[in-house]
């Protein structure tokens, strides 16, 4: 036991710790909401929207990958002494361990998706003569004899994957149906009929279709990744699918941790300004007008330059490259949080201004209830829906902003896997002949999927929580 344990050195990066804190917080909140009828109601409304639930399913896939990618460790070097072990400088994650060969199977340079040869001709020695041809890949399609075998092999693998995905989803569907029918205390067949007519109290059809699609996609991918580079390889021969999957964590971290920084500032200052008014309001308004007046990108750029200078002048504080990249990611989240709380704060200020004049708040004040208690019991619960809507709406914008910031050169560390860095590194490759499009394509596809899912989910949440929604129709 201790032997196996000692071959790893767990690494807790700053962002990891915050992510886990966030997960615990969210779980706590879920527990709290489940126990209160009035808090649960709008979430049940969200659960009845097909679009929102389909999006939530896709989001959860991203979240699971992101979480797996947040448990970091370093492997022990094979020939290091037992009493004083040396660890590799590479910080790996559980996700790396799960995908296994995807990370290590590195080619020489670019290769097309599902190819078995490099994308450009090279001089190779063959039978004593030097010929110019497309060299074979080391891993991609290495089991094939000739090019003609490639397409049939890919088709065969895809079909098997599709079939297995379908089978898995059928199995899941059966289990789900049995469970739901049991809970509803109706016969299995009747539940199926309700499902067919779309009369269940949740969008089971959409969820099942999405689940089937996802499982089939997973099936195809699982059968192809073992023998091919599904999205090709990049300039140094790394698998593009692996890079895209690794970037998920970066996108999620930026989308969530930034909001985590925003919330205390926006809630605290926004409510304080609206509730207390007077000079407190003036000061807080002044602060956010100043911050707001600076163009966002410039403020972020200025602050990131500052952090860069700080990291450069204190190299001994960060022992591995991963830690250095991590602190920059965290700094980016902090900076984006500090620059983006103003919108929500203004919203909360306006709402608190309205709430403080309502009768029940006045009554509470007349009874001598303290300010903190009034704010926490009467004001905050009544503005919470605004906070929630802002969180889900901001998420997608932040993920997109990461790409732009990386392009400007003030985004995440260049060594960190991110869609922004992938786009940045490959945008000039479109000028090549033949065109290297797969790296850009993969990054944009992944980013688009995450952002679209987040946007659709956010729409569902907003529609369920926004009280104005009722009037609008």
């Amino acid at each position, binding site marked *: 036991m201790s032997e196996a344990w000692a071959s790893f050195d767990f690494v807790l990066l700053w962002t990891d710790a915050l992510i886990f804190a966030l997960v615990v917080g969210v779980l706590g909140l879920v527990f709290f909401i489940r126990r209160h009828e009035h808090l649960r109601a709008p979430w049940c409304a969200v659960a009845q929207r097909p679009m929102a639930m389909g999006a939530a399913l896709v989001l959860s896939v991203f979240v699971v990958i992101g979480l797996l990618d947040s448990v970091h460790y370093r492997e022990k070097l094979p020939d290091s002494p037992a009493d004083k072990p040396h660890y590799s400088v590479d910080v790996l994650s559980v996700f790396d361990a799960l995908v296994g060969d995807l990370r290590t199977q590195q080619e020489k340079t670019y290769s097309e998706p599902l190819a078995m040869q490099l994308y450009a001709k090279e001089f190779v020695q063959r039978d004593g003569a030097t010929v110019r041809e497309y060299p074979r890949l080391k891993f991609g399609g290495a089991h094939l004899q000739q090019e003609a075998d490639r397409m049939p092999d890919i088709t065969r693998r895809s079909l098997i994957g599709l079939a297995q995905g379908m089978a898995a989803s059928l199995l899941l569907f059966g289990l789900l149906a049995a469970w739901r029918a049991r809970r509803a205390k109706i016969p299995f067949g009747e539940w199926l009929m309700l499902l067919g007519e779309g009369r269940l109290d949740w969008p089971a059809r959409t969820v099942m279709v999405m689940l089937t699609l996802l499982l089939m996609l997973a099936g195809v991918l699982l059968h192809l990744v073992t023998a091919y580079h599904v999205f090709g390889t990049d300039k140094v021969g790394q698998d593009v699918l692996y890079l895209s999957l690794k970037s998920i964590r970066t996108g999620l971290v930026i989308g969530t941790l930034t909001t985590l920084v925003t919330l205390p500032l926006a809630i605290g200052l926004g409510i304080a300004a609206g509730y207390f008014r007077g000079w407190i309001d003036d000061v807080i308004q002044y602060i956010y007008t100043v911050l707001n007046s600076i163009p966002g990108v410039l403020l972020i750029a200025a602050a990131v330059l500052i952090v860069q200078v700080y990291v450069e002048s204190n190299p001994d504080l960060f022992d591995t490259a991963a830690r250095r990249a991590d602190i920059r990611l965290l700094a980016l989240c902090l900076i984006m949080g500090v620059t983006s709380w103003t919108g929500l704060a203004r919203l909360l200020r306006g709402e608190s201004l309205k709430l403080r004049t309502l009768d029940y708040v006045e009554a509470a004040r007349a009874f001598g209830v303290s300010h903190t208690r009034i704010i926490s019991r009467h004001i905050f619960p009544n503005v919470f829906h605004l906070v929630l809507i802002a969180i889900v709406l901001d998420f997608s914008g932040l993920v997109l902003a990461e790409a732009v910031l990386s392009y400007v050169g003030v985004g995440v560390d260049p060594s960190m896997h991110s869609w922004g860095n992938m786009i940045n590194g490959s945008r000039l490759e479109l000028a090549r002949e033949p065109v290297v499009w797969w790296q*850009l394509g993969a990054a944009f596809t992944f980013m*688009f999927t995450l952002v679209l899912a987040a946007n659709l989910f956010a729409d569902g949440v907003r529609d369920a929580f926004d009280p104005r929604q009722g*009037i609008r129709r």
Partner: protein
Amino acid sequence: MLAYILRRLLYAIPILIGVNLLTFALFFVVNTPDDMARMQLGAKHVTPDAIARWKVEHGYNKPLLLNAQASGSAQLTDTIFFKHSAAMFVFEFGKGDDGRNIGNEIRTRMGPSLAIALPVFVIGLLVNITFALLMVFFRSTYLDLWGVVLCVVLMSISGLFYIIAGQYFISKLWNLLPISGFAGGIDGLRFIVLPVLIGVVAGIGSGARWYRTIFLEEIGKDYVRTARAKGLSEVRVLFRHVLKNGMIPILTGAVVVLPLLFMGSLITESFFGIPGLGSYTIDAIQAQDFAVVRAMVFLGSFLYIVGLILTDISYSWADPRVRLQ
């Protein structure tokens, strides 16, 4: 009215001072000029001599706030704060790392920035409003539903994708327009079309959706019901009443960004090689030219505050119920 504008202008001064102090703190206090010098010269082999020379070249070889060695008013004026931060109030930005006067650069680069940003803004506004009105006209039908879905899809696509895909297909594959570049006069038109087109398309998603909500909010109001009760046709209600009233939040929201159009767009300008303020800023950020970044921060917030004042004025102009006092 005049008194109100004057008061707003006075109110703007403390905000500009705040911005100034913030940038001063960021650029000179959090990191000393020594740190900047080390960063610029490369961390490995810097000598104290080299740092001192760099500081003299950039005029950073003075005390931050108070020069004890000078006499009289020079105690306050011969400092980094006065020379580099306070001087920005009279638009004295000093020189960038390339030795050029930043003020001159800003003046010559405003034109190209505006040549892209203004058409994007105006055409975008028209396209978005048209699209939004169409969706509102067909509200609660499948046309509206798919319109909204299309908007969400469009706004989920990265802005970088629009630019890269547009350049690749329109310029490289189909050779319709030059891929990048800029020229003055009528000849420059062909360089402007592509960035403007991409800018407009990239903005449709969020813009049209936002305007749709504004119009839908208007349509639920009492005056619309009255108009319908009078027997007006739906088209007339939409274009005569809803459009006019919906324009108030739209226009006032647009006014605030109007001055900021001078700053141009960072990404668009750098992809299309347009010699505007956006590409100037992005070059400065990438070259870590702190003086230029500082100048652009100040200019940006100045223009934003101008926009805020214009917004207030336009409110009272567009909606007579709003009185300025």
